[in-house]
């Protein structure tokens, strides 16, 4: 029975989401956001969605994070 583990990861995702929105440093938020994507990829794997997990890891975790980072560098990482 994997259901409790699934729920656990879902909770981790919720925590990461809250943290990403609350952490004061933008780059830190992006890193947490990457972790969020990573947890969701694991979550998808647990539910048997291997393709989705793969895509989420490659696109969501890697490329989106890179986009965010490069955009933040182009602007500034001011704290809000």
């Amino acid at each position, binding site marked *: 029975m994997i*259901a*409790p583990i*699934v*729920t656990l990861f*879902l*909770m981790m*995702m*919720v925590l990461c*989401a*809250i943290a*990403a*929105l609350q952490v004061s440093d*933008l780059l830190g*938020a*992006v890193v947490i*956001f990457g972790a*969020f*994507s990573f947890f*969701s990829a694991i*979550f*998808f794997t647990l*539910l*048997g*969605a*291997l*393709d*989705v997990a793969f*895509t*989420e890891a490659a*696109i*969501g975790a890697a*490329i*989106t994070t890179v*986009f*965010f980072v*490069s*955009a*933040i560098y*182009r*602007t*500034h990482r*001011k704290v*809000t």
Partner: protein
Amino acid sequence: MEAETLSVVNYWLAASLFLIGLYGILARPHLVRKLMAMNILQVAVIVFFIILGYKSDATPPIVRQGDETPIARNYINPLPHTLMLTAIVVSVSTTGVALALLIRIHRRFGTLDESELIEKLK
């Protein structure tokens, strides 16, 4: 019974993710943060769909070697997975465009804070 409770909890958690995203978009002042919230919102939708597709005691939707006549009961529903691949790609595309817009905004107004921006637009 327990499976049902857990199932509702999972739906609720997905809903919470959705709401966190919505909250971030509405309430967080920094535009990059809003964008992250938008991503969270989209992931929430993806999570929801993936939960829909899941079947207990079934394997991922790849035909096992030697299984000549696959039976629906034994494999997880592949359709939501397909749909969500699209959703992920849409989400990264939207993010890319949004970031480009952000850079333009920052170029012109020197800030990405919503209230400051409204101030400068006046």
